């Protein structure tokens, strides 16, 4: 049974250009409710941009985005983003707020919870990532791995239906990667719908249900981890895998 009220996510024929640089050239992606899709591909292939377009941090030039089968392009984008949690490579915690306040802040301001209830929920979320005892300190005093777990708690506190991870472990010291990956695996097995941009091929292969290989702003291959990792059909994916593995 899923712990989350997660939904499916679909991107249809998404296009985006920065000026003359066509970064997304007709992306189709579908992530089934309660499953995890990992997005892999060389640097500059448009993975981060795809995530930002799907939560409308950047508006697509063309195409459609569906959450639980319903187009969200006409919705208020701020409200859409409350339904999609996002975790960044650089954590992006608010350095001037305590760890607890980083999580509680949006609960008060956006979910309009009373102060003590927001704090209690924040502590609850922090407890789930093992950092309740750090609620009172500033993020800068935490290790990178701890900061990323706080960032995950901050996103989860909004009770999102989908979670995005953009190279969530790339900025971490090697010994801290495992803890964050374990947390992401737990989320996946608890039934969160996830889109995970990652260079961690172990996660992609063993945890995600679906792998999307992007290159040059298009989806080159898309399928089960077994299909992509054991029988890559295209030369581009074969080359990519031999470079990273």
């Amino acid at each position, binding site marked *: 049974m899923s712990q989350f009220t997660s939904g499916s996510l679909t991107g249809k024929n998404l296009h985006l250009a920065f000026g003359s640089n066509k970064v997304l050239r007709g992306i189709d992606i579908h992530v089934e409710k309660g499953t995890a899709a990992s997005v892999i591909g060389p640097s500059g292939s448009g993975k981060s941009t795809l995530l930002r377009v799907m939560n409308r*941090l950047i508006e697509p030039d063309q195409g459609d985005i569906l959450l639980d089968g319903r187009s969200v392009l006409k919705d208020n984008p*701020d409200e859409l983003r409350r339904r*999609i949690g996002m975790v*960044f490579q650089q954590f*992006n915690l608010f350095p*001037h707020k305590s760890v607890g306040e980083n999580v509680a802040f949006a609960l008060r301001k956006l979910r309009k919870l009373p102060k003590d209830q927001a704090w209690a929920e924040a502590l609850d979320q922090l407890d789930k990532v093992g950092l309740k005892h750090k609620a009172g300190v500033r993020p800068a005093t935490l290790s990178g791995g701890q900061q990323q777990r706080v960032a995950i708690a901050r996103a989860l506190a909004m009770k999102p239906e989908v979670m995005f991870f953009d190279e969530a472990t790339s900025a971490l010291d090697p010994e801290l990667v495992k803890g964050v990956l374990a947390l992401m695996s737990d989320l996946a097995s608890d039934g969160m719908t996830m889109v995970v941009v990652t260079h961690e091929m172990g996660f992609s292969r063993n945890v995600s249900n679906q792998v999307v290989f992007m290159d040059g702003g298009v989806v080159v291959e898309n399928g089960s981890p077994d299909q992509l990792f054991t029988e890559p059909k295209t030369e581009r994916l074969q080359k990519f895998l031999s470079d990273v593995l």
Partner: protein
Amino acid sequence: MDAWSRLADTFLNWGYIAEVLPTMFSYGLLNTIVLALASGLIGTFLGIVLALMGISRNPVARWVARIYTDIFRGLPAVLVILVIGLGFGPLLNELTGIRSPYPLGIAALSLMAAAYIGEIFRSGIQSVDKGQLEASRALGFGYGPSMRMIVVPQGIRRVLPALMNQFIALIKESSLVFTLGLMSRERELFQIGQDFAANNGNQSPLVAAAIFYLALTIPLTHLVNYIDNRLRTGKEQKHEPDEAAAVIGKGAHA
């Protein structure tokens, strides 16, 4: 009298210094502080407005802020004070009966301070990592609330030292209102020193004024350095027992 004692008498005649001190204490000091503080506060308020215009998505707002800043940073302070003080003085007098040069002097100082403070705030706000805005918007805050609650407070915090320097500059520049002609009780530190010096043909009263200025500005300069260090290193955090334990643990593993 030899040269040395003549110089000593010119600059450090204790009799003249003693004579000017009561006047400086009774209103000169206060007037200087009023001028600097009032224009500092108004300048800060206008500066925030200018900074927000400067980073606005509206190109007209950006242009207005740009032109304003270029003009007021590019003019000598004494010129702005004279033009505004003398130029608008008669009108202010007709409309309100006010003869004091203070309102217009403060206005001129504020307008100039705003240009500098606006640039300080703008650079502070723009130096905040782009990821902060992105993270806030990803949580579901709009652009405006994200700027107001997340980005701008961080930007302001980081420019507090530069802001303090601006206030120190205002303490010094407040002396320029003398060019508008000050009545007896309106005189601030510099004008009082200048009057006593002229009446007595001796520079010691100006030295007294200098000491007052330094008594204001030197502690503030050091306060700036203190804040700067504090912001750079972060205030000392109390380490929790388990962190201390972790450090000890690391040592044991090393």
